[in-house]
Every structure is written in structure tokens, then in C-alpha cells.
């Protein structure tokens, strides 16, 4: 039975358990639900939980572990004879999958697929026809291993079905057996709800940990191949896929910070002024229309902004500063192009957060200032903004970490040259854009040219994590001030 059918069978058992549990609870109460500690529906749910949760957990673990176990068994039994074991294993896996598909499509009978003496030529034709290309080195030893691979898989799947369904039935029986009229099924359901919520909350945290760990391992293997001092301190970034690259992060970091600084110089004043207008001056009707409109900007995919940079802003800047007029600019791609467009992208982040924070400043402070004969703008400048400042700083830091992590606008707007320069009209590139180009090449995944991407990502991660922590800390302190 396939994993999907096993899953459905477990769910069906849980549903049956629910109905049986309800009925059993009612009969335990002699038909009077008021003598039950918990409602019949809680009893039913407690049986369903007892049947489904351990069985589904086992199914999930089995699905994750079985391929690893089968791989390890086969890998231990093969003798690669001059080829790398990795390559041979991947041939075996492909051949096994090809046999599965060919059997399912009717190109091979199950008996043929399992026949140890089958003709390799015929097998190869059938497998290739099923859409799985085979390496030319695949021969009789691979076929033998692939057949054992399939046999192990089949028996593993059978065992899995029995184990999972057995556990579900066991849970069902146990759940039904413990129903009494004073059994606290309600508390069990309550606990299950709490654990489900806890699970949801921990998924994000655990994923973050996983990301950090994978970054750390790959970064460490990069620094084994490439000296850390050169990475952090060299001003030269010239990757060569043949080897002998210099991989200094400084030009990339400079590009990232320069473009982010321009973006913030655009986004912070405009976003902040927009927020002040919306929260302090705009009539409610206008605000109800303008605020969502500005927030629409936040929903536009960044690739669209990238196109805007490439097709509109870049050529516009080129007409203003390019060869035809001032002659300061050679191509449409530049730090300024990317920075301006990224700034536009960040406006809604700054304005929306700042607007919320400014609106949270108590009206009594505004009244106090107006009551002393201050004008609106004096009130905003001298009372409202100082009171909202910590929150606004937090909003700006959040926008900064978005700017640092932005990729598409840079790829399309800033060019690809890693360069240390002060001229904003020159093309430069950023850490994120280089991560993409290092990993999309044909480089061997264990070469420093590919692994450097993880070191770059780790640097970015640490940078933006630091900014986010700082921002959240500041915003939280602000929130406490008026509660």
C-alpha cells in the first residue's frame, strides 16, 4: 500500500474512532450526557487523537528514514571498481526508478524487472523510453544492485504499512478502552490543541536553526579551502571557475552598503513625510484611500521593480548623465539606478510602520501642545516625532535589513561588476547578486567558487539578523512607553 493510501486509512480509522468513542461515551453515561466529565465530542476526539497521532508520526519518520537505510545497505554491498561510489549509487537509484516507471508503463513485466539474468540492452531501452537517461557505465552490477534496491524498498513499504496501521489500531483500541464516564477527555483534547499550536510556532524557529546550521557547515568547509583573512580583507573579487580565484567580500559589501544607503536616503524622508501627512493632516476619507494604495507598493514583486529599474529609471538617468549630455555615466546600470528604485520599494515599509507608530502617540500630547498655542507642524516636530522616534528608528532599521537582502533590483539595475568606487553612476554589485551568480554557474559544488556563496550568505545573515534584533528591541521599548 502506498504512503498516501496508508495516510488515508489512518485518517479513516481516526474518524471511525471518533464515532465509536462518542457512542461508547454515551453508553458509559447510560444515555445521560450530563453525568459525563467531558462532552461526547471530546471523548470521540480523544480516541481519534490516540489512533492518528502516533501512527502518523511513525509514518512520517519511516518516510524520512527508509530511503537512507536502503541507500546505506546497498552502498555497503557494492564495489565501485574504479568509479566513485557516489556516481555508481546515483546510477543505481536512477535505474531503480527507471524500472519502476517502465513496469508501471507496461514496457517491462514485473517478472522481467526482477529477473537477475535480464538482458541489459533491453532493460536500458525500456528505462530510457520511460524518461530516465542512464549513464553508459551502468551494467550488470548496477542492474543487480538496482534490483536489490527495489526489493528492499518493496519489503520496507510493506512493513511500513503493517506497522503504521497496527499502531493506529492499537491506539484506537487503547483510546476506546479508557473511556469512562469520569474520564477527562476534554483535558486531553485541550492538551492536543496546545501541542498543535506549539508545533506550529516551533516550525519557524526550527527552520531558522536548520538554515543557520547548513550555512555554518558550508561556511566552515569554505574556510578550509580559502583563507578567512583573504575573504574578509581582500578588495579583489575575481572568481575563476578554473580555480585560482580571489574572493574578497569587500567590494560586494561596499556595493551592498552603498546601494542600501541610497535606497534609505530616498525611502526614509519620503516614507516618513508620507506617514506624517497620513496620520496628522489627511482627512479620514483620504487616509482610507491613500494608505492602502501606498501599501500596494509593498505587494509588488521585486522583479517588477527590477524591470522598472532596467527599462525606465536606468535609461532616464543615462539621458541625464550619459554620453549625450554630461558624459558622467557609461551604461544604464549603476548604483544610483538600483538605489533609487530600491528606495521606492522601501517607501511603504517606512511609511506604513511609521504611520502606525505616529498614530500610537497619545492624542493628549497633541492637545497639550495645541492648547499652548503651537501650530500643527510645531506640534509634529517638537512633540509627536520625538515621542515616536524610537519606533521610527525601528522601522528604518527594518527597511535597512530589507535593502541589504534585496537581490532582483540589484541584478537588473546595478550591473555585475564588483568594484570599490565612490561614484554612484558606476555599475557595482552586491553580496546577494553574487550569491546567485556563484551558485547558478557550472562550478563543482565542493569548489571554493561555489562554497563562497555560503560564506557570503552567512555574512548577510549575521548583518540583517543584527539589524532586526536591534530594530525589534527598539520598537518593543517604544511600545512599553505608552501602555
Amino acid at each position, binding site marked *: 500500500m502506498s504512503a498516501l493510501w496508508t495516510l488515508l486509512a489512518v485518517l479513516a480509522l481516526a474518524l471511525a474512532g471518533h464515532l465509536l468513542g462518542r457512542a461508547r461515551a454515551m453508553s458509559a453515561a447510560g444515555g445521560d450526557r450530563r453525568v459525563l466529565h467531558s462532552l461526547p465530542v471530546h471523548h470521540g476526539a480523544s480516541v481519534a487523537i490516540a489512533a492518528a497521532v502516533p501512527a502518523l508520526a511513525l509514518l512520517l519518520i519511516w518516510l524520512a528514514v527508509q530511503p537512507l537505510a536502503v541507500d546505506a545497505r546497498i552502498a555497503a554491498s557494492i564495489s565501485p571498481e574504479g568509479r566513485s561510489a557516489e556516481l555508481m549509487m546515483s546510477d543505481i537509484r536512477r535505474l531503480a526508478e527507471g524500472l519502476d516507471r517502465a513496469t508501471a508503463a507496461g514496457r517491462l513485466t514485473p517478472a522481467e524487472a526482477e529477473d537477475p539474468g535480464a538482458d541489459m540492452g533491453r532493460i536500458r531501452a525500456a528505462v530510457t523510453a520511460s524518461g530516465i537517461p542512464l549513464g553508459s557505465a551502468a551494467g550488470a552490477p548496477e542492474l543487480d544492485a538496482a534490483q536489490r534496491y527495489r526489493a528492499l524498498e518493496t519489503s520496507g513499504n510493506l512493513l511500513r504499512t503493517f506497522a503504521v496501521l497496527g499502531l493506529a489500531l492499537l491506539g484506537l483500541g487503547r483510546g476506546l478502552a479508557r473511556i469512562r464516564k469520569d474520564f477527562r477527555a476534554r483535558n486531553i483534547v485541550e492538551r492536543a490543541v496546545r501541542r498543535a499550536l506549539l508545533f506550529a510556532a516551533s516550525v519557524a524557529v526550527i527552520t531558522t536553526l536548520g538554515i543557520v546550521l547548513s550555512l555554518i557547515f558550508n561556511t566552515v568547509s569554505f574556510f578550509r579551502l580559502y583563507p578567512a583573512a583573504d575573504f574578509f580583507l581582500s578588495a579583489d573579487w575575481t572568481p575563476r571557475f578554473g580555480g585560482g580565484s580571489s574572493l574578497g567580500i569587500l567590494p560586494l559589501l561596499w556595493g551592498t552598503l552603498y546601494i542600501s544607503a541610497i535606497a534609505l536616503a530616498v525611502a526614509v524622508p519620503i516614507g516618513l513625510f508620507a506617514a506624517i501627512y497620513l496620520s496628522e493632516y489627511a482627512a479620514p476619507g483620504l487616509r482610507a484611500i491613500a494608505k492602502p494604495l501606498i501599501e500596494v507598493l509593498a505587494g509588488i514583486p521585486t522583479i517588477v521593480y527590477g524591470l522598472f529599474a532596467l527599462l525606465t529609471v536606468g535609461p532616464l538617468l543615462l539621458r541625464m548623465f550619459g554620453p549625450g549630455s554630461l558624459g558622467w555615466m557609461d551604461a544604464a546600470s549603476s548604483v544610483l539606478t538600483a538605489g533609487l528604485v530600491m528606495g521606492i520599494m522601501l517607501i511603504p515599509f517606512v511609511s506604513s510602520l511609521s504611520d502606525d507608530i505616529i498614530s500610537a502617540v497619545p492624542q493628549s*500630547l497633541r492637545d497639550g501642545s495645541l492648547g499652548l498655542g503651537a501650530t500643527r507642524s510645531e506640534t509634529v516636530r517638537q512633540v509627536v516625532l*520625538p515621542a515616536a522616534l524610537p519606533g521610527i528608528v525601528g522601522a528604518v532599521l527594518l527597511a535597512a535589513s530589507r535593502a541589504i537582502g534585496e537581490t532582483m533590483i540589484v541584478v537588473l539595475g546595478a550591473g555585475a561588476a564588483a568594484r570599490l568606487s565612490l561614484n554612484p553612476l558606476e555599475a557595482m554589485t552586491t553580496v546577494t547578486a553574487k550569491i546567485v551568480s556563484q551558485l547558478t554557474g557550472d562550478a563543482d559544488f565542493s569548489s571554493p567558487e561555489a562554497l563562497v556563496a555560503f560564506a557570503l550568505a552567512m555574512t548577510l545573515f549575521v548583518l540583517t539578523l543584527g539589524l532586526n534584533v536591534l530594530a525589534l528591541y527598539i520598537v518593543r521599548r517604544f511600545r512599553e512607553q505608552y501602555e
Partner: protein
Amino acid sequence: MTADAPKILARNVQVHYADTHAIKDVDADIADRTVTAFIGPSGCGKSTFLRCLNRMNDTIDICRVSGRIELDGEDIYDRKVDPVRLRARVGMVFQKPNPFPKSIYDNIAYGPRIHGLARSRADLDEIVETALRRGAIWDEVKDRLDAPGTGLSGGQQQRLCIARAVATEPEVLLMDEPCSALDPIATDQVENLIDELRSRYSVVIVTHSMQQAARVSQKTAFFHLGNLVEFGDTDQIFTNPQDPRTEAYISGRIG
């Protein structure tokens, strides 16, 4: 202008909040160097009327004021009157103490700086000290003028706000339930302060406490459902009310 001319004169004042008629046909004369108390049950319009006197209702979009209100014979709702200038002459103290998130010194110096009242730093120092003394809080804060105003106790904050209002040298001081957030001791201090302020300003105070009205005011106005029911000497209102509604309120039968 004769000595008996009222500081503020209101005739036929109407206030509407959207569809609600909040103030109906109110006439009132508020004398200079006098404490006038507005009393009445919640929602009777006394705070709304108070906020008409320095046009604080302008900041509420749905609020419309009509009728005539004069300060020293000049219509404050006239087109050529700047509400910002008006509020410098008619200061306001609010129900909840609302010190700015600044130092004590900057809280007091806020108004004088905005209106350019000080020629020099020494001048400003003197204005701040005078205002804090008039606010009866100088002795408590003179050693920590740089501390944040929000760090003071509730009663101190309210006296700070009164000192802040006094620092702009207003002619009239409006107080909207200034003691409702204070304990009895702080209330006593603020009431003594109001009594001292009477020598220089015309003070209008909205209060829910009839004892407070009786203690601090010389004139009392009783509002009910948007109408000014009775306005007269405080002694007369509390001992010999003319209107049955006033009598019912001060004896605790309505409200």
C-alpha cells in the same frame, strides 16, 4: 472697556457633533480674575463648551460651532483671528496630566520658545522658574530640571502642566477636570494653586465634584443636556438654586 466688562462673552452658542446637538443656545459672561466652575452630569456639554472658548474643537473634524464668543470684545470665531494666537492667550489644562516626553525644563520652556517670549537663555531660565513657582512645584523639581517630566508623580505632573500653561502668560486658563486623575492630597495642592492663579488670570474649571466647585469658584454654571440651566454666584447656586433641575442635581437626585 470698563472694569466690569466680562473677559469672555458668549451669546447664542450652538455646537453640533455630526447629527448631535451638543450645546444649545448658551449665553454666558465670564469675569476677569475670577474662578468660574462648570458643573453638570456627564455628557451635559460642559467640556464641549469649555473647548469652544479656545477653539480646541477646531481639531475635531465633525464638530461645528455657531453663535458668538468674544474675548475682550473681539469675536474669536472671526475669520481674521488665528486660533493658534488665540490659544496662546487662552491656555488649557487637561483632565489627564499630559507632560511631553521631554525634560521638566523643556516642558515649561515649550510655549515661551514657540511664542518667542524669551530674549536670552537667562530670560528663559527666569520664565521657567517663575512658571514653576506659580505652579507650586518649584521646590520639588528645582534640583532636577533635566529629569523627564513623565517621571513625576500624577499630582506633580498635573502641576507641571499647569505651570506649562502659565508660562505662556495666558489671560484665561481653562481647566478640564484637572483633578479627576489625582489623589486627595494632590487635589488639595491643585485647588490651592487655582486660588492663587485667580489673582492674575480668569480661570474656568470643569469639575464633577460639587464640593470642589464650592471650594474653589466664585461663579458656577450648571449645564444639563446641552443647556446652560443656571449661572450665578457659587454661594447662591449651592444654597438657593432658582431652577428645580439645579436643585435636583446638587442634592444628588439627577446626574
